[in-house]
């Protein structure tokens, strides 16, 4: 058990290190320094600025400093938002995105699992077919299409929900829902096939033969085992919610970290891009690690592998 966790943690750290390295060298590959803008600064100022940010040193030294700073939890300074620490920007904007993403994950899980189970239990009936058609559509329609369609109908024509910002709980409905549709549909499909698989197993038949009631078989034997693939999906789900938030925050003009990331890319704020990538990547890798450990606790067979 312990060696398994140790191995997982070592992998996670290695992945984070690789991502830091790749982003660092890729960002340095891009021609043009971060201080080049429409108004070119004089050579003296440029030199002073480079010295201040440590950009005059050789690349290897810069890389070493960058790693050392990250280890201390310092991601450096943003360039467009002058002098602001990237960690401060994250602390400021991430809670907004996290709240939105957390609600979306919750919605997806809470609606997706019962929907998939229902489809599996009513296999081949009209209800199953309806759910399958809806979920196929759900995984085929890009988030930005859903988001804008919802915004137009429920926000502009019918005017039930506000279309931008996050002031009241009502403001959350549209963004959370458009963020949650894809994972919800995916979880429902996953749950359906996994539950169908479990329901065909011998131990379910044995339990039924012993006279265990239907509901008890479902909750005690079938659902527990059928949930394992859904737990595995939690890692990719977080990644999906995170990238989805880039789009949703743009559509609903929400002041979150996703929008910050996209604007840092379009304005070529390299330290910011690097810092946010490292932050996002670490978040996802840690999430995957948690899922791995959870998986191991839920399904003890995994350890044997």
């Amino acid at each position, binding site marked *: 058990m312990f060696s398994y966790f140790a191995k997982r943690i070592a992998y996670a750290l290695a*992945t984070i290190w690789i*991502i830091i390295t790749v982003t660092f060298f890729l960002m340095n*590959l891009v*021609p043009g320094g971060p201080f080049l803008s429409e108004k070119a600064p004089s050579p003296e100022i440029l030199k002073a600025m480079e010295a201040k940010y440590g950009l005059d040193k050789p690349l290897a030294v810069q890389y070493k400093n960058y790693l050392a700073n990250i280890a201390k939890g310092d991601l450096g300074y943003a360039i467009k938002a002058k002098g602001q620490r990237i960690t401060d920007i994250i602390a400021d904007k991430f809670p907004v995105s996290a709240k939105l993403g957390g609600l979306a994950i919750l919605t997806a899980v809470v609606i997706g699992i019962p929907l998939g189970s229902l489809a599996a239990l009513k296999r081949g009936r009209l209800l199953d077919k309806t759910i399958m058609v809806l979920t*196929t559509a759900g995984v*085929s329609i*890009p988030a930005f299409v859903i988001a804008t369609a919802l915004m137009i109908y429920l926000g502009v024509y019918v005017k039930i929900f506000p279309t931008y910002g996050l002031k009241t709980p009502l403001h959350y409905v549209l963004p959370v829902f458009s963020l949650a549709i894809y994972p919800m549909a995916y979880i429902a499909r996953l749950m359906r096939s996994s539950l169908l698989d479990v329901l065909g197993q011998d131990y379910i038949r044995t339990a039924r033969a012993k006279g265990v009631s239907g509901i008890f078989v479902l909750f005690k034997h079938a659902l527990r085992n059928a949930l394992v693939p859904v737990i595995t999906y939690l890692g990719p789900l977080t*990644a999906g919610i995170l990238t989805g938030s880039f789009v949703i925050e743009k559509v609903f003009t929400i002041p979150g970290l996703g929008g910050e990331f996209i604007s840092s890319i379009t304005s*070529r704020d390299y330290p910011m891009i690097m810092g946010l990538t490292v932050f996002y990547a670490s978040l996802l890798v840690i999430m995957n690690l948690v899922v791995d450990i959870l998986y191991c606790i839920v399904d003890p067979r995994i350890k044997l592998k």
Partner: protein
Amino acid sequence: MSVPENRLKKNIFSLQLNADDFLPADESEKQELVVMRKSVTFWRDGLKRLVSNNIAMISLVVIVFVILFAFVAPAFYPYSYSQQIRGSENLAPMEYSERELATIESGGRVFPHILGTDNLGRDYMIRVMMGTRISLIVGLVASIIVLIIGSVYGAISGYVGGKTDIIMMRIVDIIYSIPDILIIIILSVALKEPLKALFDRNDFLRSISILGPSLIGIFITFSLLYWVGMARFVRGQVLTIKEQEYVTAAKALGASSGRIIRKHILPNCIGTIIVVTTLQIPSAIFTESFLSFLGIGVSAPMPSLGSLASDAIGGIQSYPFRLFAPAIVICIVILSFNLLGDGLRDAFDPKLKK
């Protein structure tokens, strides 16, 4: 009843068996006893099942229509995707500008703007067509790249086995756990400038640069990251097939590795590989439209379905059809490829055979 001479005389102590039953059978009798059907090959069997699957066939027809719409229709369309018609900005579908109305009145013919025009006076229909073309190109090329890299890597890893396999799969594990969208965004930002410089310098590359450096950048990033799923999949297939008795038998008979791969392993996993490749197409289109929507995909004036939708959001209240047209095309394309992929899996995956 007279008994013919050549027949054996019945002995009174015999078991009363009819001696006729033991005569050799003639040809017609032999033919009757053959219960074999005509042998059905794997492909014919799968194809039969695919054709009888209505949903898959409908999606195939839709895909053919979309391909015609994207690749053939623009050749006959009188406008070009980057042509700005002055005075015809922001037209509604089927509307004519004043200048065009004047031309019509004086007897000239003006092709209608089926979906209107955008704020720069470009015909929107042709832009949607070109956007569809870009999305389809991205989907197809990216999946072919993924198919080639992934299956070769996975097949080598699975077939050779041992230490090679362990090392190769560790590399895959690490790439797999890297959040793909982040790296794609970073790569497409970083590759844009160097690729542009490279394309300007090299004559051969300039000829393919009609696609635009950012599109090539998307291909490169896709091929660097998305092959790992395919590699894992092919390796798993090869590992199971390698252990089958018929492969051991072939080895015992002295077949070479090349022959075993060509004659036994490839034919047995090609069906599932095709399915996975088909399902790769919509996911690539998905990612491309996502990137273009964020403004880091294809570069202007080349339209993509994602960038068209993104541009339309600004004027959503006045010109909603500008969003709906590309959005509906994206949904149709992704949905029909997904459904076709599901149909192919039902038809060609040996494990799902009933």
